């Protein structure tokens, strides 16, 4: 994975800037940098990934060097450094999940989608990734959709239904 982000994005929306402001307000005036985690995740929620442009906008807003923002993007696993599918799916395969078919769920998902783990479907709808502990071990197998929505007790039948139902969503 290249650490240089070559993908470009459109300007962030006014709504996103308003959300940035709410995050910044949580911290002391001279500690705006604390909002960087939230701002990056908000930018990602709008655009699907964190572009170099977004990093620069956030850097300017928070009074940080763009490289300091990029360090954060690249340190934390959930920031997408390049575009992903419309639905990014992370299946937990850590030991407690593995004991309840977490690894099997990941492989079943790959087969259902017809892609390798880590890949994106040709229609750009799904990206499939393994995940580390999500803190929901008693719900295993668990997966996360687009960072923010957790799905629990994902048997093979439910995995199939998840994919079929999401494919059927007409926007």
């Amino acid at each position, binding site marked *: 994975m290249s650490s240089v982000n070559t993908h470009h994005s459109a300007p962030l929306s006014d709504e996103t800037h308003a959300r940035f402001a709410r995050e910044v307000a949580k911290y002391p005036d001279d500690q705006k940098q604390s909002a960087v985690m939230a701002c990056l*995740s908000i930018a990602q929620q709008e655009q699907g990934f964190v572009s170099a442009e977004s990093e620069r906008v956030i850097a300017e807003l928070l009074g940080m060097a763009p490289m300091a923002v990029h360090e954060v993007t690249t340190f934390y696993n959930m920031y997408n450094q390049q575009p992903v599918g419309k639905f990014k799916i992370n299946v937990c395969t850590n*030991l*407690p999940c593995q004991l309840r078919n977490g690894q099997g769920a990941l492989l079943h998902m790959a087969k259902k989608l017809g892609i390798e783990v880590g890949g994106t479907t040709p229609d750009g709808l799904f990206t499939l990734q393994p995940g580390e502990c999500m*803190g929901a071990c*008693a719900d295993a197998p668990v997966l*996360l959709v687009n960072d923010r929505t957790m799905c629990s007790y994902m048997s093979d039948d*439910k995995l199939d239904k998840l994919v079929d*139902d999401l494919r059927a969503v007409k926007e």
Partner: protein
Amino acid sequence: MTTSQKALDVLAQFRTSGVDTCFHDRHIGPQILAGLNGNNWSIQDYVARGGYQALRKILTTGMTQDEVIAIVKESGLRGRGGAGFPTGLKWSFMPRQFPGQKYLVCNSDEGEPGTCKDREILQHNPHIVIEGMAIAAFAMGISVGYNYIHGEIFQTYERFEAALEEARAAGYLGDNILGSTFSFQLHAAHGFGAYICGEETALLESLEGKKGQPRFKPPFPASFGLYGKPTTINNTETFAAVPWIINNGGQAYLECGKPNNGGTKIFSVSGDVERPGNYEIPMGTPFSKLLELAGGVRKGRKLKAVIPGGSSSPVLPADIIMECTMDYDSIAKAGSMLGSGAVIVLDDSRCMVKSLQRLSYFYMHESCGQCTPCREGTGWLWRMVDRIERGEGRESDLALLDNVAENIMGRTICALGDAAAMPVRGMIKHFRHEFEHHITHKTCTVSAYV
């Protein structure tokens, strides 16, 4: 990557209700999870359950900071995040007369594999954490706090944000709380996928908007914490225990558990049991009782081993854990750690080499890279366990594994190095024959792999 409402509607059908893991009748004398049903998280429900009475009692009866800390000390409450440090003692370390800003931080970055209790507390009873934090802030003279929540449980972060709004509107947070001179501003922050941020100083770095790399201690957060100011950090469950202690007294809390191990504890039971879930039971409850509450070993199989305190704690074979009670002292005496109370159960179909392979991969993946013994050592451990699992191990590997583990332990800034090394040593100590079998026979001792 905005998820449309239609897509969210699809995903809603796969959302957990919490019925199986939290809202069951298999707690024993619950204090934190008592009376929850998944629909009564909001402030009016919490108040109806007697919520915010402890804070009200402190602020309206003129209790002093010293009195509050004395009650918490008397309760024997020990940190529920894993280290088990006495909470009252930690609070007493805060320089209360410090003239500048001080901070209170809640560590809800729950990512220790096997642990899933803080998520349910925050999701279903968020105000108990808010009240506990407000009491702690009063006791230490702190006016600003943050709750740093695991990034993977974003819905829970949003729930906590909603609860904060309720608490502010009702006057339990903000300026001059309940008409007193005490003011406390509390905010929520979130991680975004870094196990290391569960380490308190890495969490502080992250909260400051940086890479989550642990700080060298000393100085400890009580003197140099968030933004370099005196800071106290406690786990979610620790704060959640506080209101009950204030309402019922330190002695009553201590009597729920056993000496030096006061109160109830929420155990997250995962893996090979019939009913994975959270069980709030008194400290000192026999492990066999906890296993029974969780429905016993899955499919009537035989218990092989238990990782008793989250993935970092050394594994204990069935015959040892079945003799233990669930408290800090008993599990420590057996050679492991109560840790965060995450009980990972393995039945007799499980290969210990394969289990360790997965855990070792995790620690390699999550090492922040700051300290050489951890950065290099976790990868080395994983590569060796991985090749043993694949039937390519060498006879010298077991001694080398132990040697590498020993050379990581105690040689890193934070505990992740130890956390990676301890499972390796525990597995080899108790299940050496399985590793030897893999090396000499190139096959597994059990037929069904995890």
